[in-house]
């Protein structure tokens, strides 16, 4: 056999990669660098305006004071213990609702549902993420709090419980979407190995698949928690915002006030430079500190999980002894799991008959747990699948209720005129055309900024760097920002872009602010997606003499596209629906001409909705009409993104 003529350049000396490679490397590095700089810029900005309160009232009095009364007479009180308690209570409650529901739903979608159902349910749930928080807030205020008031016979339904339910619903799409990805990524061999031993489907899921997906699921929970801690607009509408510690401490019907709620309701009106103003920035700093602690704890746990399962592959970082998760003996752990499971499952009873329902359910489930051993694996499987399906049905029901509420009230308001005309009579009549255009501009700009920057930074961090100081800094920074309430971004945009750079209230200020807000999500999800690509693929490409960038662009990125797109989808939904970051930076209530330069202000749908809902009496129908348009717009973005993702998923197998 003769060799075909050589089609490659003659092998010469071993020369380093060409200039193209260097350019790309520098570009990616600058993305990562820019991400780091913005992150620390925002942190520095918060600290600068926050530190006077620590000097003035003293750190102890600020952090441990039990009274928040900024207008108190003769002395204002700035004690944030009630706010911290409120944040913790509402977040924990939300997680207690969202984590079991979300993971069940993810399992159902990834492992139980037939492909056709899966293809419908997954995007439907991601839509939940696209519903603007103002809409959740109004749904919560009008439907949920009233229902709680009537059901529990309390004077007002605005409570910790209402906040937890709304935040739980809002965290669900993130948790479901990300853990579903993680569960789907568990190699089929694990499942086969378990099934081949005679394990039931459920035993395989519970003991092999879910533990295998645990790092991803934990990441999902952290992302969801970030969303819950940072949420402002919805939570302040339903929790009542009374700065008190619930009494007794487990009174879920007590009104509470969160740290974010405090920022959300007081920030707009507080006079700049007053102690109250600094106190609010102090609150933002504390919020960041809480996020940091939560994230560090979670990172440690995930790190340990990964170490446990794959030593040698992941870098075993030394973990300080105090943070180590204590190793329990299997017996104790089993009991702990059971008790926890019973406690969480019993929450189902809460909505129906209050505390009595909870106790009743707890009793029933305890009985069930005690007789567990006598139950065959097959019955266990039936019960488990029933619960999982019920949870999924519940999530879909929630989605249906919220969507139908908006659609039924909003569709009648839609008309060609509504879509193509500027508003008249303060939005009570006329249309919302400029707001639609404005929102498109804002989202496009934000994505245009955050996507290349975030993806570039993530690629650099995950493909060009070994785990080092820079990656650690960026990761910590992004995790911090992920929990930063959107209103803080708004303030940053206002102080830095609008006032300091003298952009004025303008489109570009809004785009940059929104872009920065979604940057952490983009970086994080992209990194996760890249990490999911097996090392063997990279090695295979590099072994053929491909350069780093060729390997990254042709081998690593294509299979990671679905994951990256999922991140982008979540970001778009968030950017389109957010009010707080554009409130101070980009929007006007009404506009006659469309913006003609990046320095003109714009109208935007969520802001229009917010003003109609809070400050214009008698704009009911148009309010819901605006919500519907916003929702449809987000659905449109999603449809495109989901289409891209399905396209890539079809072509990706390994």
């Amino acid at each position, binding site marked *: 056999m003769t060799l075909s003529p050589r089609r490659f350049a003659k092998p010469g000396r071993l020369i380093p990669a060409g200039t193209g490679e260097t350019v790309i490397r520098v570009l990616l590095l600058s993305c990562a660098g820019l991400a780091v700089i913005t992150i620390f810029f925002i942190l520095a900005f918060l600290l600068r305006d926050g530190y006077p309160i620590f000097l003035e009232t003293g750190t102890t009095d600020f952090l441990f004071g039990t009274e928040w*009364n900024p*207008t*108190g*007479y003769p002395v204002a009180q700035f004690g944030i213990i009630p706010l911290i308690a409120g944040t913790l209570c509402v977040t924990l409650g939300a997680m207690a609702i969202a984590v079991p529901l979300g993971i069940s739903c993810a399992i159902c979608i990834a492992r139980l549902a037939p492909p056709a159902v899966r293809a419908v349910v997954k995007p439907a749930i991601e839509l939940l993420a696209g519903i603007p928080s103002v809409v959740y807030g109004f749904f919560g205020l*009008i439907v949920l*709090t*009233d229902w709680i008031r009537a059901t529990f016979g309390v*004077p*007002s*339904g*605005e409570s910790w419980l209402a906040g937890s339910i709304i935040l739980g619903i809002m965290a669900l799409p993130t948790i479901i979407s990300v853990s579903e990805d993680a569960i789907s990524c568990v190699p089929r061999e694990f499942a086969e190995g378990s099934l081949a031993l005679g394990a039931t489907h459920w035993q395989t899921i519970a003991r092999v698949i879910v533990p295998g997906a645990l790092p991803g699921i934990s990441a999902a929970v952290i992302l969801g928690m970030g969303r819950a801690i940072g949420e402002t607009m919805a939570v302040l*509408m339903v929790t009542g*915002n*009374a*700065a*008190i510690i619930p009494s007794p401490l487990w009174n879920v019907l007590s*009104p509470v*006030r969160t740290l974010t709620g405090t920022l959300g*309701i*007081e*920030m*707009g*009106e*507080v*006079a*700049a*430079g*007053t102690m109250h103003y600094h106190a609010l920035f102090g609150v933002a700093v504390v919020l960041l500190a809480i996020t940091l602690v939560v994230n560090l704890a979670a990172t440690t746990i995930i790190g340990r999980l990964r170490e446990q399962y794959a030593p040698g592959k992941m870098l075993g970082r030394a973990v300080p002894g105090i943070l180590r998760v204590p190793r329990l003996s299997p017996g104790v752990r089993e009991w702990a799991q059971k008790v926890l499971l019973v406690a969480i499952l019993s929450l189902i009873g809460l909505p129906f008959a209050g505390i009595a329902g909870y106790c009743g359910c707890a009793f029933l489930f305890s009985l069930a747990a005690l007789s567990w051993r006598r139950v065959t694996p097959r019955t266990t499987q039936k019960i488990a699948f029933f619960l999982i399906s019920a949870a999924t049905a519940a999530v879909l029901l929630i989605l249906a209720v919220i969507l139908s509420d908006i659609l039924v009230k909003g569709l009648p308001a839609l008309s060609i005129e509504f879509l193509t005309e500027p508003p*008249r*009579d*303060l939005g009570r009549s006329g249309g919302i055309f400029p707001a639609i255009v404005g929102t498109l501009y804002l989202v496009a700009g934000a994505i*245009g900024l955050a*996507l290349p*920057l975030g993806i*570039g930074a993530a690629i650099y961090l995950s493909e060009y760097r070994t785990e080092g100081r820079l990656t650690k800094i960026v990761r910590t920074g992004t995790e911090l920002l992920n929990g930063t309430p959107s209103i803080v971004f708004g303030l940053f945009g*206002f102080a830095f872009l*609008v*006032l300091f*750079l*003298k*952009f*004025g*209230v*303008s489109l*570009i200020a809004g785009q940059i602010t929104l872009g920065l807000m979604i940057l952490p999500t983009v970086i994080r999800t992209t990194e996760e997606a890249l990490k999911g690509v097996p090392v063997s693929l990279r090695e295979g490409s590099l072994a053929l003499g491909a350069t780093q960038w060729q390997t990254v*662009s042709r081998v690593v*990125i*294509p299979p990671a596209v679905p994951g990256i797109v999922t991140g982008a989808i979540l970001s778009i939904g968030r950017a389109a629906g957010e009010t707080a970051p554009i409130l101070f930076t980009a929007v*006007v209530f*009404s*506009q006659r*001409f469309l913006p003609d330069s990046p*320095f*003109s*202000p714009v109208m935007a749908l969520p802001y229009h909705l917010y*003003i109609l*809902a*809070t*400050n214009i*009496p008698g704009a009911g129908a148009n309010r819901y009409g605006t919500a519907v348009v916003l929702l449809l717009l987000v659905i449109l973005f999603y449809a495109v993104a989901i289409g891209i993702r399905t396209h890539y998923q079809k072509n990706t197998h390994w």
Partner: protein
Amino acid sequence: MIGKRYPALIAVCLVVAIALFACGCTQPGEKTAQPTTPQGQARESISLSGSTTVLPVAQAAANAYMNTHANAEIMVTGGGSSVGIQAAGEGTAPIGMSSRDLKAEEKARYPDLVSTVIGNDGIAVIVHPSNTVGPLTLEQVKGIYQGKYTNWKELGGPDTTIVLVGRDSASGTREFFHEKVMNKEDFAAGQLEKNSNGAVKQTVAQTPGAIGYVGLGYLDGTVRAVPILVNGTPIEPSVRAVLDRKYPISRPLILVTKGEPAGLAKDFIRFLLSQEGQKILEKEGFVPLGQA
């Protein structure tokens, strides 16, 4: 195949990003600081920024003004009184809107701010429509908000627990209420706090035991305004009553400018103070300046 698109994509995005930053370096703000030629053909625009309470009036007036001045564009944005004062002080918006007086800190920071009162906002005490409680004195309202009364039957109403609904502590409305009604004494701790008039009304409308306070413009069939007893005479909250100085709770609406207003800003403020402007104000449920 797929890989080839990425360098291109990233390159495009980088170019855009650089372009954006380049724009940022050129002198922005020319839109807001255009030399004004009142009778000229050039399109002229100003923006008003600040209090969400003043926003509807400013917007309605802006619409009316723009109908007669084809080349003017007046854009109104919310954010809160503080945002408005800062924007005016920093010069990013020619006019700031505020529903409270400037604080000492703000005056110190921006000494050349000029305030113009354009009208008043009467504040009504509201309860759920099913609540049959009779007229209340200011002293009683204060007692309710201090937590002295916890059930409506103590005030001759139905046997329901009182739910306090108020505004957030940074709100101009609350500050005013705090001064005029509470005599600067503390509110009870369990008060539900809302960040807008609309939210207060919504909560009161669906909570049988609730009491709240909102601007006159928000009164409609879903809530009941409680008359206030002044020297033994019950006074229904209304624009008329505030104008006649019979109704005791009202506060000023303010526009702030950096230095004396000029150009379009000056013309627009003049329009707001004119008879036509004051009519718009009244139509939106606020109290015109009257003779005072």
